[in-house]
């Protein structure tokens, strides 16, 4: 009792305190430490809240009715689903806060660390309250706080042009999502006074199917643009590389998951699920996002932008799980549907861990080499051994390699898709194999992409002076990353413990019914029900470890000769220089050719000849660019239309005070006349 009622205010107090104190901190150093302290207190308290709700399955409620009582007041109501997402937020914020202590030292003098500390804590506060929100007002307030705070965080390096552009795209997309979410909530709310989620649940039962469909579409568009589904993902590859690395880790690992939370909350909790086309839409959107995300990630040389595109891919995978679960749910196959939803939740948790880890490790690299371009790195495994190992663990996790967590959750998504064959209508059931094919392709391409990312950045020889001079990152940055690496390993090996807990979380979501046989005591196996498949990650890990150990021992017993170091075989070459190594572009080139119809790379070849004679070539420049063509097709027309409207409106702004007074008088007359016409 006591612990629960203390933890929630403590969480709020931690973040608010961290924000205010950071703002008034006397020096940048103090600001850094205070920011981290506030964030750590808040995250630990949030974890306590989440743990309590998940273990007891009793919701925690905190109301502050005086704040804007007309809108229902501030209501925090943490049920198991909210607690799960709160845990995800806290799991991401804790390492990020620790990381920020040393990382933000690089910004001293360039930007105000006090302001950064304020925005950082406000951001964490916003995300936590979104997961806890119990009525519309609290949700929207927290959502906006989160979006605005993250905008300011993205603009930390506002002296770089790219960052300003990224900020513009980002703020436009967040406001777009708000503009879609407000009508959605309006449609859901049965009345002005009753805006609590409990009331919405009751009211949603009385909505007509068309209205429910519209609400669902608005939810998918609004929450989807926050989550980063194709084609609303365009802000992700711009904003995430521009932000400081631990902010990118938070945005990519945690913030976009709140979009998923929104979809689950609105579509499956408040509205109790719907017709099959809901799940079908999610499945299509998820498959396309997964495939396109990884395809564009393959072509990237900017380490952080590559990771950002992978976030798009993984959100796609989560939505595939959701879609599969939703379709099965709408056909009444409840037991099988829970696999899909559990898979989605599991992948949410796992992605937060390994994406956070990858961004933090990438942040280490960027911090020390002062470049994000992979083509200038190399050989970092010798200079930054711990960071390399951390990045390797993250890469293995995101490539879904056993026995880490990425494999366990992708296995569950596959099982959920396999369950789709039980659907009575074959046309719908045939969509599932197509989704399986696309998911498998995305998974294989992700493995290829991370071989490139890890191999080019960390292995072989340094390709530039930056990389050659790099040293290992400071301790706090490494500690934070190790926390997440440990989480990846534990969540993977301990899958058989995590999955039953997820089923229990799903019990609280309104429309889902969990088969009691499904949530046994945690054992060694995770299984898809109806014996669709069994897997034991912990036993696989044990098996692998023992076999490798036996092999190593046997080989070293049998083979007694010492190791000899020598040059790489050069096929007759004498010197081995970094120029002879494979580059990132070269690595991705076969896949670029295979998917050339999709990428449509532009090619530009310029040959400049000597002024005296056209037969002597001075230089040849070849540029080839892969630009997402749907940005040109979808967004350029919108941007151009916006500009045209702006130009048109500018004509009204003449600068003449008299004309403005005329506008005011005309508007007043029109308002009075309209009252006259409509009584």
């Amino acid at each position, binding site marked *: 009792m006591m612990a629960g009622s203390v933890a929630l205010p403590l969480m709020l107090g931690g973040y608010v305190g961290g924000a205010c104190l950071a703002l008034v901190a006397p020096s940048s150093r103090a600001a850094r430490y205070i920011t981290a302290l506030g964030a750590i207190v808040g995250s630990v308290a949030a974890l306590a809240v989440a743990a309590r709700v998940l273990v007891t399955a009793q919701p925690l409620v905190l109301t502050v009715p005086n704040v804007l009582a007309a809108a229902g007041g501030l209501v925090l109501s943490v049920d198991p689903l909210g607690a799960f997402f709160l845990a995800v937020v806290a799991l991401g914020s804790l390492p990020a806060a620790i990381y920020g202590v040393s990382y933000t030292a690089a910004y001293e003098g360039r930007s105000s660390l006090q302001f950064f500390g304020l925005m950082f804590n406000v951001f964490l506060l916003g995300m936590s309250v979104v997961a806890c929100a119990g009525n519309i007002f609290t949700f929207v307030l927290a959502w906006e706080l989160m979006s605005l705070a993250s905008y300011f965080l993205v603009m930390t390096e506002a002296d770089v042009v790219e960052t300003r552009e990224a900020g513009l795209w980002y703020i436009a997309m967040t406001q777009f999502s708000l503009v879609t979410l407000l009508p959605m909530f309006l449609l859901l709310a049965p009345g002005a006074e009753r805006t609590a989620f409990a009331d919405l649940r009751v009211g949603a039962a009385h909505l007509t199917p068309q209205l429910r469909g519209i609400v669902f579409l608005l939810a998918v568009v609004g929450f989807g643009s926050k989550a980063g589904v194709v084609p609303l993902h365009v802000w992700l590859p711009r904003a995430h590389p521009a932000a400081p690395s631990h902010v990118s880790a938070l945005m990519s690992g945690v913030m976009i998951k709140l979009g998923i939370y929104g979809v689950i909350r609105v579509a499956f909790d408040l509205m109790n699920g719907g017709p099959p086309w809901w799940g079908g839409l999610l499945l299509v959107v998820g498959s396309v996002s997964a495939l396109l995300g990884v395809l564009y990630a393959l072509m990237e040389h900017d380490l952080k932008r590559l990771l950002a595109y992978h976030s798009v891919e993984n959100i796609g995978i989560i939505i595939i799980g959701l879609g599969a679960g939703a379709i099965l749910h709408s056909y009444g196959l409840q037991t099988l549907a829970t696999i899909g939803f559990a898979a989605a939740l599991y992948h949410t948790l796992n992605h937060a861990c390994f994406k956070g880890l990858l961004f933090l490790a990438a942040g280490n690299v960027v911090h020390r080499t002062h470049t994000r371009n992979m083509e200038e790195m190399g050989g970092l495994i010798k200079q930054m051994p711990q960071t390399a190992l951390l990045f390797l663990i993250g890469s293995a996790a995101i490539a879904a390699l056993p026995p880490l967590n990425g494999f366990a959750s992708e296995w569950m998504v596959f099982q959920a898709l396999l369950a789709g064959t039980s659907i009575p209508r*074959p*046309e719908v059931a*045939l969509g599932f194999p*197509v989704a399986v094919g696309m998911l498998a392709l995305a998974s294989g391409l992700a493995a290829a992409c991370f071989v490139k990312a890890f191999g080019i950045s960390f292995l072989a020889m340094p390709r530039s002076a930056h990389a050659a001079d790099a040293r290992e990152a400071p301790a706090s940055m490494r500690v934070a990353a190790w926390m997440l690496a440990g989480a990846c390993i534990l969540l993977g090996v301990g899958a058989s413990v995590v999955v039953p807990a997820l089923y229990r979380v799903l019990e609280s979501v309104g429309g889902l019914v969990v088969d009691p046989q499904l949530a046994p005591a945690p054992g060694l196996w995770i299984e898809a029900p109806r014996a669709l498949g069994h897997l034991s990650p912990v036993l696989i890990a044990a098996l692998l470890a023992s076999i490798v150990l036996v092999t190593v021992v046997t080989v070293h017993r049998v083979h007694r000769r010492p190791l000899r170091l020598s040059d790489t075989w050069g096929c007759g070459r004498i010197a081995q220089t970094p120029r002879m190594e494979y580059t990132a572009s070269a690595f991705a080139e076969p896949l670029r050719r*295979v998917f050339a*119809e999709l990428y449509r790379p532009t090619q530009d070849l310029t040959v400049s000849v000597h002024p005296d004679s056209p037969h002597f070539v001075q230089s040849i420049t070849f540029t080839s660019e892969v630009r997402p063509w749907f940005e040109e097709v979808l967004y350029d027309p919108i941007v151009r239309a916006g500009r045209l409207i702006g130009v048109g409106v500018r004509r009204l702004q003449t600068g003449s005070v008299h004309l403005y007074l005329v506008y005011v008088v005309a508007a007043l007359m029109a308002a009075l006349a309209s009252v006259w016409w409509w009584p």
Partner: protein
Amino acid sequence: MDGLFSQLVVLGASGMLMTALIVLWRRGVPAYITAYRWQSWLLGGLTACVAYFGRDPALYFVAAALILLKGVAIPFLLRAVERRFGAQREVRPYVNTETSLLAAGILVLFAYALARPWMAVTMLPTRAGLPLAMALLFVSLFIIVSRKKAITQLVGFLMLENAIALLAVVGTYGVPLLVEFAVFLDALMGFLVMQIFIYQIHETFDTIDVEQLTRLKH
């Protein structure tokens, strides 16, 4: 719905679909002729199967006619065309090979969705072949549309005719010999006309790339 008959029908129809995929996959004309020949033989074999299991002796003659005309005679004529223009390989079609194959896969699924109501209505044991026959139809149309060389389009047209014959065999246990002959003569006329066109295109442009026909505008 098991049973040897259904399995054989699905096997034969899938085989015919595979040969159409070979046309999408390979680039050389001899491969196309071989694929067409196998397809016609499979069609003949399938008709003979239907004759045996459906106890309709007239279909044996249809099968024999199919094998003779489409499995032997037309490939022979095609070889003559190939000897003149066989060096023309389908190097860069409108849709590249991987995309064509994936599109063919999607067309098969689409044909299945389309044929479902029909499958639900008929009670024949051959109804499992209906979606495959429709898929073959769509894939043949796709071949005609996405390939540039006239000779590939010719092979696509012949496969289209095979698809219609398959649809007739599988959907209604075949058609009377007279109707089969009439349809075949129609196709033969189309074949001869196309052959004349190929000769003429080659005379005018020195290539059988159908894209060159746009030059006739000016």
